[in-house]
Structure formats: C-alpha cells, structure tokens
C-alpha cells in the first residue's frame, strides 16, 4: 500500500493513518468498512477522496473528522492518537482544528447567514464584537457581502454552501473536511465553490480533504485517493486546476 503523500521539503505530516481498520457489528454480522488504511496527509495539501458508495470513504472521513474512532490501527492528528481520546476531547479537537462542509449545507434554519457563520465562534467563547467582525470578514471572503441578514431559505443552494464554507473557515481551521460539497449544485455553482476552496487552500495554506464522486471536481485537488472495498485502491497526483 502506498503510504507516501506529496512529501515536499518543509512539509509537515498533519494526518497519519496507520493500519486503520473499522468494523461495525460483531461475529457473523461484522461489517468491515475499513481494512487497514495507511494514509498520510501533509499540511497544505488538497486531497480528493473518491470511490463508490460502500467503499469506506465516508467511514474514513468520519475518522479523519474525529467523529468516529478506528477499531484497530492508529489515527494520528498532529501526532495525537485520536483513538485514545474521549468524546469530549475529540469535540475539542474539532472545535479548535477542524472545519466541516457538508453536502446538504446543514445551516440552521430561520437563522441569519451571519449568525450561522458566528456559530463555531460561540463555542470558542469569542466575545460578541470580535465574533461579529470575524464573521463579516468570512462572509466577505466567500463573496456574500450584503447577504448577512438573509436566512438559508432566502439563499440559493450555491449561496448556502458558501455560507457553510464561511462557517467552516471563520475559525481558520488547520483542516477543512468537505463531504461532497458540490453534490447538490449545478456545474456553474460547483465551479464557484471549488474556486473558493482552491483559493483558501492556496492563499491561506489550509489543508483540505474532500470527498467527491465527480472526476471533474476531483481534478481541483492536487492528489486523488480512490477507495474500493475498504482499502485504498489507488492514488494519483494531479496538476490541480486553479
């Protein structure tokens, strides 16, 4: 199995998976979602994760996002073994280092765009004034200046996803995990979203791991990992669009 990422000089192994296995259920009914994954993602990388449904990519993303823990093997985030952490400690890891973008946006209904963006800062106990100014900056960075008071139902899908990206980016996370971020969008909106992600990756050096099944979206990433039946089937470098 290929464990080498794009090991550039000065790059820092941010994420390491060593023989990660995930089994759901026990005995006869046991379902092996992951069968020994070895993976390394360095700081500043933009990685696309592909594979058919049931291939283990979602399980892998859940583990990467510290939402789940491996059954066997080790997942090291900045050298910390996440599998040994409690639920609360993993929540704190997410709070301080990770950003999430979901396929279905997952914005809070009947809550203004700005308040949605402020949400992760509330959990970081950032005072209201600073929170507001940072959320406004993030809204501007995703090109939604002037839409702050709109609620999700008043925004288009592309705009909603941009609010979600602003929400993920407002904390300046080390890693942005995006699960099918363009899954619900047409090609024009998809391109806008991908351009946005690429900019964050290149300008701010934020590491992005993105699940997609669209090859045209995957090419925005510099590296593509393909899952099949719970193992990494192939890895390839691409030039990256941008």
């Amino acid at each position, binding site marked *: 199995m290929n464990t080498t990422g794009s090991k550039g000089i000065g790059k820092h192994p941010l994420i390491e998976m060593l023989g990660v296995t995930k089994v759901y259920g026990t005995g006869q009914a046991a379902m092996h979602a992951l069968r020994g994954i070895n993976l390394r993602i360095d700081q500043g990388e933009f990685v696309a994760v592909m594979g058919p449904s049931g291939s283990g990519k979602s399980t892998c993303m*859940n583990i990467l*996002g510290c*939402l*789940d823990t491996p059954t066997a093997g080790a997942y090291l985030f900045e050298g910390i073994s996440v599998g040994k952490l409690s*639920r*609360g400690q993993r*929540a*704190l890891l*997410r*709070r*301080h280092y*990770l*950003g*999430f973008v*979901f396929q*279905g946006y*997952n914005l*809070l*209904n*009947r*809550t203004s765009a700005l308040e949605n963006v402020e*949400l*992760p800062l*509330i*959990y*970081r*106990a950032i005072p209201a004034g600073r929170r507001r100014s940072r959320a406004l900056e993030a809204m501007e960075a995703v090109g939604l200046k002037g839409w702050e008071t709109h609620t999700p139902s008043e925004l288009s899908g592309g705009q909603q996803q941009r609010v979600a990206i602003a*929400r*993920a980016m407002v904390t300046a996370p080390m890693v942005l995990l995006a699960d099918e971020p363009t899954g619900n969008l047409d090609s024009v909106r998809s391109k806008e979203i991908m351009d946005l992600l690429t900019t964050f990756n290149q300008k701010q050096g934020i590491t992005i791991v993105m699940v997609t099944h669209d090859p045209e979206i995957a090419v925005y990433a510099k590296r593509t990992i393909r899952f099949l039946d719970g193992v990494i089937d192939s890895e390839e470098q691409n030039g990256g669009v941008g």
Partner: protein
Amino acid sequence: MLWETVLLALREIRRNVMRSSLTVLGIVIGVAAVITMVTLGGGATAQVTSDIAKMGTNLLQVRPGQLHRGPGGTRSTANMFKVDDAEAIAREISGVAAVAPVASEMLQAIYGNANWSTTVTGSTNGFLQVRNWTLDSGRQFSEGELRAGKTVCILGSTVRKELFGAQDPLGTTVRLRNISFKVIGVLISKGQSSFGTDQDDFVLIPLRTLQRRIAGNIDVSRIYISAQDGISTNKVQEDIERLMRERRRISLGKDDDFHVRDMEELVSTLTGTTRVLTALLGAVAAVSLIVGGIGIMNIMLVSVTERTREIGTRLAIGALERDVLMQFLVEAVVLSSFGGLFGILLGLASAAAGARFLAVPFVLNIGIVVIAFLFSAAVGVVFGYFPARQAARLDPIEALRHE
C-alpha cells in the same frame, strides 16, 4: 456563554411562537391557579382577622368544659356558670370594662303570620357593650326589666326583616314559645361574619327572663368579658382563671373544668384553618404544574427529534455534550419561566377579580409569587433534563445523516 445560550433559547422559542405558547399553557394555568388560590386564601384570612378585630380583640369568653383541640369539641358535662360568677368577675377582677353572662335557646319567633327560627339570647345590657352592638332604634333594657325578668326584647336586623319587612316593629309584640315579648329596640346590622354565619340573626331578651320563662333553670352557658383599653387580656385571663378555679373549688393539680378564650386565640385557630385550606388548594394546583412540566418534556422531546441534524452539526463543529445539554435545558427553563411569568400575571389578575367578586381584600403575597416563579423554573430543569440529555448523547454521525 450562558447569556448566549439564553439568547439562543429565546430565538428558538420565537421561531415557533404558537407551539411555545401551547407548550407552556399547562404551566401558565398551574401557576395562575396556585397564585389565585393562595392570594384569595390570604384575602380571606385577612378578612377574618379584621372582622375579629372589629369584634374587639380585648374580648374574652369563659365557657364551661375544657377546650379540646381536635375532634370532640367542648366537654359538656361540666357545670354551667351562674349569674353570681359573672357578678364576681365584674366585682373582683380589675381592668374589666364590661361583663355579660349569656344563655341562649333556638326558638321560633312569631309575628302575625310570619315566623322565623332564630337564636334567643338572654343577657344584660353588657352584651351590647362587649359585642359592640349599636341600637338602630328604641332603647336598651332598663334595670327594672332586667331584675324582674320582663318580657321585652331587642331584635337583630335579620329577625326584624324576616318578621316585619318594612314595618316598624317598635312597640309591637313578638311571640317566643307562646310568650309575648314587647319589642323595645332594633339593632344596626353587622352583616355576615367571615365564618359564614349571620350575626344579625338573634333576639336579645333579659337573661332572667330566658332562665325563668324559657329555659327553666338558672344556668349561664358563657360569660363575655371585655377588658379595658390598655389592659393586657392575658393578665385579665389569668385573673379570671384563678377566680373561677376558686369559685368552682378545683383543687390544686386538677384540670380546669372551664376555659377562657381570648379573640386572638380564635384568630389563630381560624387563620390556621384557612391556611390548611389554602395549602390544600395550593397542592391541587401544584399537580397541574407537574402536568405542565410533562407537556414541556413532551415538546422538548419532539424538538430534539426535529432538530437532530442541527444537533449533529453543532456537535461536528465543536459543541461539547455539555453545550448541547445546556442549550436544551436552558430552552426548557426559559420556556417554563415564561409560563411562570404569564401564570403569575394571570393569577394575580384573576385573584383581583375573585377578591372583588367574593368581597374579600386583595392581599398580594410576594412570597408565593417568588415561590411560584422558582417552582416553574425548577419544573423546566426537571422536565427539560431528560430531553436535553437525549440531545447531548446523540451520535454526531447518525445525527448528521438524519433526515
């Protein structure tokens, strides 16, 4: 952070005003019921107290038999008093303003075609003095009438109304047990007492007349004594007890076969009764608070299910279990506190209306208002905890997948 959570809860409640108000309706009704009951109860107590104060707190009553607290009442085997006893009290005890020996019978009073069943009280002019009665018209008994046991009477205003209607009764005769009594006076109405009895429903005749012509004995069933202003009723009470023990030859160490009650004691007995009643009604009302709490729990559980994805999102972006728990708990508490607040307003309003209707004073009890509010908030904590824990324990992966 807590303030943020409160704001968040307020926003959540505002999002669904209709449902939120229906949710807290149980609490509103519960709190309103408690406040109404307790306020009206307090008003009734205040009324009783003031009525008794009107009667005169310097009033003492001596009755034969021991006062038993609880079932059984007064023991009736003890010897009755005699007129001598009342005279002895008037003569030998200092600080006494007036003494009235009293005996009474239930009789039919007849005038023309009208008849009315009433209490016939035999006493002296002292009775009018100790019980604060004022003559509306006519006169008191004369010394001669009292001494000779003449058949004259003074009517309470109820008896006058029932027998005479608009007619002037002075100078006419009323028949009591086939004896004609000349009406010499009519009393001013005192109205209903707070214990629900009609104070004006009686006929006053000389004590001696009652003893000789009606009862056929020389018993006095009770003696009223009013103390002079500025004299301690306790002191007078002790003196009377000593005197009566002496007169009734009760040896040392034996219990009294009579009792002296002052009105303050009566006040405390009566307010005690209303307090028990108030507590009972309050307890019934508290049950509806519990029911209201269950309503809140129900809606919070629904809310947790509806907002599963939101909870998942919050957990994913770094909310701790504690944060989610607090969010839902605070929401439940804010809801129930709102219910408490509205319930207090509603309760005070209906208590004010009820007080007017029942003609009792409106007595604001700040204590019960505070307790009702705290209790409703506590209902939020107790019944909000379970749904909040459900929310906090959600698996973020499952929650995010929830449709």
